[in-house]
């Protein structure tokens, strides 16, 4: 039986990777993917807690997270497309129309 902590460490690691990716990568889609990564990291920890506690709440929440992530992806891509159509770029640094 793999002890609970290892899962937590994995989840924390994946979460950190996702956050780091979100902070450094320049391409909007990559940033989007890193956010998805963070959400999945949370799923890992939720499932492991749920299994450890023998309680169903974790699993229920995981399903909700997955569906929401999907919806978010759809909307996110739609917006990126709209942005791309206007600005022909997906590079985050060009998206500073508004500042100050």
């Amino acid at each position: 039986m793999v002890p609970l902590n290892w899962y937590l460490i994995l989840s924390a690691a994946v979460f950190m990777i996702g956050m780091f990716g979100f902070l450094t990568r320049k391409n909007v889609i990559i940033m989007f993917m890193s956010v998805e990564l963070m959400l999945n990291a949370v799923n890992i920890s939720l499932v492991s807690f749920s299994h450890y506690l023998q309680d169903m709440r974790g699993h229920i929440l995981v399903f909700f997270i997955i569906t929401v992530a999907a919806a978010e992806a759809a909307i996110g891509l739609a917006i990126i497309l709209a942005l791309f159509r206007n600005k022909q770029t997906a590079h985050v640094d060009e998206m500073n129309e508004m500042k100050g």
Partner: protein
Amino acid sequence: MMTSYALIPLLPLAAFVINILLGRKLLKENAHWVSIAAVAGSWVVAVMALFDVLSGAKINYDVYTWMLSGGFKVSVGFLIDQLTVVMLIVVTTCSMLIHIYSVGYMHGDPGYYRFFSYLSLFTFSMLMLVMANNFLQLYFGWEGVGLCSYFLIGYYFDKKSASDAGKKAFIVNRFGDFGFGIGIFIIFLTFGNVYYEPVFSQAGNFANASINFLGFDVHLMTLIALLLFCGSVGKSAQMPLHVWLPDAMEGPTPVSALIHAATMVTAGVFLVARCSPIFSLSETALMVVALTGAITSLFAATIGLVQNDLKRIIAYSTVSQLGYMFLACGVGAYTAGVFHLYTHAFFKALLFLCAGSVMHAMGGELNIQKMGNLKKYMPVTYITMLIASFSISGFPFLAGFFSKDEILWMAYSGGSPVGKFVWAIGTLVAFLTAFYSFRLIFLTFHGSFRGTHDQEHHLHESPKSMTVPLMLLCVGAVAAGWVGIPALIGEQIGVHNYIAEFMKPVLGHPEGHGTHGEELGIMIFSTLVGLSGIGLAYFMYILRPELPGRIAQQFSAVHRVLFNKYYVDEFYDFIIIRPTIWIAKNVLIGVTDARIIEAIVNGVPNAIAAFSSGLRRVQTGLMQHYATIMATGILLIVAMMLLR
């Protein structure tokens, strides 16, 4: 009979209100009838008051409560006793005569009604001052006359020098009133009220009390006396606040006659006389009064020697004579002081009015160097002015002689430690007075005419309305002294010193411990001094006219200093006026207001605005930066929570 006394000040007040309101449209030319009628009315009531007081009546009643706040209560009230009555007579008589005189003098002046309304207002304030039964109403009259002198000096307001002189007079008086006001505060704090009656009666039991004034332990009575004396110095143009009187000559001559000779300037002496119970309780105060009087009289007399402006010479002579009166009060001889005030009012007013008629004739020319031999054209003015000069120089049996001699005798024989020294100065001043009075007479009336040709043929005697008051005043200049003939001469001719007895209950009688012989000696000595002064003037200006010019070259430095009035005006300007304005401009506006307060008041918002534009740049618009800031925010919070 009670309410009728209130008429004395009310009549001139009514005249003022009528003239000022209706003067412009209705009265115009005949505004003088209203004022003259009013002042004549108060003169009549004043004489009735004289007889009442003579018959022993003592009047002291309140008309209405003026101010009431907690323990402090003061009302408008009248106290009529011997001192007040003398002053009433002097004020109303001089005022009436000068009113009549001004009809001729101010004829054709556009602001005719305005002049007479100011004269009535002045008479009202002076009468309120004199008849007051408490210190606050005295202060009311005090500032009232100051206001009228501001109006009257600045009467020709389109002339810068006139409006400057008016402003200067009022502000210098305010310096005096500053001390006077604080005196009243201390009186209230010590006695609990500001009425004469209770204050003078309780003055005794505070005789040796002392007070902690601004950290110094000071004898109470001396402090009060000196503070009140500040007011007198300001009003009667004594050292160091004398600078305004010579400039006050900018006003029309009747104004100088009324205000700067007969009435207003004597208010200071009246104050010292009125508060004699307080003054006599403190030795030092009396000494200060005496010394100030003496020094001022000497100082003014010396300046008077070299002036060329007709009215300025008489103005300095007034300052000098006022010094005499304070000298008298300083040595405890209040009666002598008031007596001199009484006589001085007549002959000084006469001198001014004569100067006025000379100026009238000479078309406004005042420089005596450009006059000469006027006696041919203006005999009445010449004679009256001659008598007035004799009287002021102490020519025997004229008004000046009796009052001046009384003072010198009282100074000599009085108990005051400074008496002898002050007597010496007094005698020297008597000599100088005689000299400059007759210098003026000889230069203007004798010798050859030095003015321009058209001035010469324009010379004429003043009209009746001006010469009649001159003659009446001339009678006063001669006869006024006979009221106070000292006992020494009095026994021989069966006349006793009415004024001394009359003033005894109010001002008391100083115990002179000199013998009759000494008194006679002093009298003769001072007469000789006076006559020698006249002789010297005669010698220098009639026999050897080139002598004054030569002396002036030899002692040119002294001459210049005297001619420029010891540079006192420039000195004041240098140490008071210019620095205040400089401080106002540079320090207050420049530094505190601009640099310190405004800097903070504008600085703080500007700093916030700068900080704001700085912060604004943090919002770079790049999503990466936003995310990193959020991440650092989380880390900071976690760190804070761990450390807490």
